C-alpha cells in the first residue's frame, strides 16, 4: 500500500501545474469558451512533452507508466479548466493498445501520441443509455447517429460504438470526410461537444464488446478524477477567499459556520479522490472491478454540486460574476459529473448488484 504519489508523479504534478499557471491564464479559457473552441496550442504541447504518452508502451512512443500517472495529469488539467480532449484521446488510445490488433495499434498509437491523430469516443446515442447501441456497421461502413460526443467536432477520428452483425464493437472512423456530419451542442461546461450523423462512413474494427466495457471503465475512472480536480480548485479558491474577505471586522474563515462548510468540502474531495485513484490503481494492477469504478464515479459525481455550491455560498456575490474564476469549476464540474455515468446511473448499477459481497477490510 502506498497512498502517496511517487517521486516521478510528484514531479509530473508540479511540472504540469507550473506550466499551466504560467502558460494558461484563465482569460484564455474565457476566450476559448466564447468561441466554442479547443486549445490546440496546448494540445501540441501536451503531446510534445510526452504527457499524453505516459500510460503507453515504449514501442508506441509511450513512457510505459500507468493510469495513475494520467490521473495526476488530468487532475491538473481540471484544476486549470483546460479545454483539451485529453481524457478522450487517452482512453481511445489505451483501448487500442489493449484490444486492437498489433498492426492497427502500431499504426495509430504513435500518431495519437504525436498529436497528428486526435481520436474521441462516440458511444452514446440520443437516448443517453450506455450499452443501448443502434448504430450499424455493414460491409465496413458505419450508419447511425451519436450524441454527447465530447470534442467530436475537433477530433480527426471517432472511436464509435456500433453493432456489426448484432455484435457490439468499437470502430475507428475518419471524422474529416463528408460522410461524417457534426452538429454542435452547447453544454453547461462550455466545452466542445456535438451530435454526429454517420452516412456509410468507412471504418476499421478496433475491438468487440470487451473494448467497449474497458472504454467505459476508463472514462468513468478518469472523469471521476476530473470531477475531483474541479472540486479541489473550488475548495482552494474558497479557503483562500475565506482567509482574506472580511465582514464584521473579521476574516470570514474565522466564523465557525464557514469553517465547517470548508471542512465538509475537504472531506468530500478527499474521499472522492481516494476512490478515484483506487480505481486507477486497480486498473494498473490489471483488475477491472466495475462496482468499485461505479462507486468512484458516483462519489465524485454526487460530491461536485455539494462542494461547488458551498464554494459559492462562501464566495457570496463575488462568486457568480464571470470575472471571477469560480464558475469554471462549478459548471465544468457539473458537466463532468454527468459524463460517463451520473451519480444516479452509477448508484443504480451498484443497486442492481448490491448483494455482491464487498471486502471492506
Amino acid at each position, binding site marked *: 500500500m502506498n497512498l502517496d504519489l511517487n517521486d516521478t508523479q510528484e514531479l509530473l504534478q508540479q511540472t504540469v501545474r507550473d506550466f499551466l499557471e504560467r502558460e494558461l491564464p484563465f482569460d484564455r479559457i474565457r476566450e476559448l469558451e466564447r468561441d466554442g473552441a479547443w486549445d490546440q496550442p496546448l494540445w501540441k504541447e501536451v503531446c510534445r512533452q510526452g504527457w499524453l504518452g505516459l500510460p503507453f508502451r515504449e514501442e508506441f512512443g509511450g513512457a510505459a507508466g500507468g493510469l495513475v500517472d494520467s490521473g495526476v495529469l488530468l487532475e491538473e488539467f481540471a484544476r486549470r479548466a483546460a479545454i483539451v480532449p485529453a481524457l478522450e484521446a487517452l482512453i481511445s488510445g489505451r483501448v487500442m493498445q489493449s484490444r486492437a490488433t498489433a498492426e492497427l495499434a502500431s499504426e495509430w498509437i504513435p500518431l495519437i501520441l504525436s498529436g497528428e491523430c486526435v481520436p474521441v469516443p462516440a458511444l452514446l446515442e440520443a437516448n443517453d443509455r450506455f450499452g443501448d447501441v443502434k448504430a450499424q456497421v455493414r460491409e465496413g461502413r458505419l450508419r447511425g447517429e451519436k450524441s454527447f460526443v465530447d470534442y467530436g467536432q475537433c477530433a480527426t477520428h471517432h472511436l464509435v460504438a456500433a453493432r456489426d452483425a448484432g455484435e457490439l464493437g468499437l470502430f475507428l472512423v475518419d471524422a474529416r470526410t463528408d460522410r461524417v456530419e457534426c452538429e454542435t451542442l452547447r453544454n453547461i461546461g462550455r466545452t466542445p461537444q456535438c451530435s454526429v450523423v454517420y452516412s456509410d462512413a468507412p471504418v476499421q474494427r478496433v475491438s468487440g464488446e470487451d473494448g467497449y466495457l474497458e472504454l467505459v471503465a476508463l472514462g468513468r475512472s478518469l472523469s471521476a478524477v476530473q470531477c475531483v480536480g474541479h472540486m479541489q480548485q473550488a475548495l482552494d479558491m474558497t479557503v483562500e477567499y475565506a482567509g482574506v474577505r472580511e465582514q464584521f471586522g473579521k476574516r470570514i474563515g*474565522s466564523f465557525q459556520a464557514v469553517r465547517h462548510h*470548508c471542512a465538509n468540502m475537504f*472531506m468530500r474531495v478527499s474521499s472522492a479522490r481516494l476512490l478515484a485513484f483506487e480505481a486507477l*490503481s486497480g486498473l494498473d494492477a490489471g483488475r477491472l472491478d466495475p462496482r468499485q469504478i461505479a*462507486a468512484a464515479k458516483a462519489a465524485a459525481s454526487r460530491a461536485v454540486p455539494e462542494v461547488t455550491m458551498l464554494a459559492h455560498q462562501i464566495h457570496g456575490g463575488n462568486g457568480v460574476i464571470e470575472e471571477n474564476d469560480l464558475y469554471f469549476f462549478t459548471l465544468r464540474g457539473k458537466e463532468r459529473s454527468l459524463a460517463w455515468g451520473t451519480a444516479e446511473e452509477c448508484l*443504480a448499477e451498484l*443497486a442492481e448488484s*448490491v448483494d455482491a459481497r464487498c471486502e*471492506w*477490510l
Partner: protein
Amino acid sequence: MDFEWAPEYTDFRDELRGFIQQWRTPELIAEYAATHGGQGPRIREFHEAIAERGWMRMCWAKEVGGEGRNMLYQFIFVEEMEYWGMPYGNLTFTSIAPSIATFGTEQQKRHYLPGIYRGEFVFAIGYSEPNAGTDLAALRTRAERDGDEWVINGQKIWTSLADVSTHIWLAVRTDPDAPRHAGISIIVVPTDTPGVTIRPLYTMYGGHTNETFYDDVRVPVENVVGGVNAGWGVIMHALNHERVGLAATGGLARIYDQLLEYLREERPDRLADPVVRGRLAELELDLREHRMLALQNAWIISKGGTPIVEASMAKVSGTELRTRIANVAMDLLGRSGALSAESGDRAPFEGRAEFNFRLSPIFRFGGGTNEIQRDIIGFAGLGLPR
C-alpha cells in the same frame, strides 16, 4: 499510488480471522454484552490467548516488551476485532497504552504496559466534568502536593468503565494559577484507592457510565504521566489515538453486512424492491467513502506518523455514518427493525440495528465532538484563520 495490501498483511488478517472464528462463541459474546466492556472469565481467557500470540504488543517498541512491528498490524487487529465484535481492550489498548509508551517513565512503562497487554489492567478515562465537556480545559478537579503524595478532590462525569476498571486515567488541575491549559496533569489513580466513589448513570443504550467523586484521594507523586502541568499534551495525544480507533470501518461494515445477509435470507421480497436496493447502494457508497478515509489513517500510521487531520475526517465520517446505517437498517427491516435483542429470534440479527440506533449518538460527540473535529480540519488541515 497503490491500494493493494502486501501479502504479509493479508496473511496476518487471515490468521486473525481464523483465530477469531475459533474463539467467537455465543457465550463469549453474551459475556461481553453483559459486562459492557468489563471483564468476565471468558473474556479473560480470550485476552490470555491474544496475549500468548503477542498481538497486543506486537507494535510496541522492543524496549517496552514489544516486537516493534509496523503499526499497520495493530490497525488491522483493531479493524478485525471491531468487525467481529470481540473484546480486545479497546481504549486502554488503543489510547492509553500508546500514551504511556510515549510519555511514561521507564518505571511506568514496565509497570503498566505488561498488565495492559495481558488484559489485567482496565483503564477508565476521567477527563470530563459536569462543567468541562467540549471545553475540557475548564476542568476543576484538583490535585495538591502533600509530601510524596497527591491529594485529589473533585468530581468527574462520564467516567465509563470506572466500576470495572483497575485504574483511572485522571485529568486534574495541578496549578490553579497557571493559564488554563498549562496547569493540568494526568495522574493514574488505582480505582480501589480510598476516597474514590463511583455512581452509575444508566443510558438509553442499555449500558451505563459513571459519575466519580474524589474525596482526599491520595496517590504517590510518581503516578503523574508526562510531567506535572504537562497533561494537556498527553490528553491531546491520547484523544488523537482514541479517534483513530473511533474511525475504524470494522464495526460499521459488520452492521451493513448483517443487514444485507438478513434481507437475502429472510426477506428476499424486500431485497427485490428497487427502492430498497437503492438505499443499500447509497450505504455501500458511504461505506466505501468512509473506508478510504480510514485507510488514509492506516497509510499515515504505516509511515510511522500519527494522523491528526486525517483522524478527524475519518472520525466525523465514521460516526455520522453509524447513525445513518442504523437508521436505514431499521427502515428497511420495518416493524421488526424496532425489536430489541430481548425479543430473541424475532429480532433481526440480534437487534443490532435497533441497538446501534440507540448507541450511535455517543460516538458523534465523544472523543472530541464532531464540531470540534471540523474545527481541527479547518484550522490544521486548511489553515483557516482563527
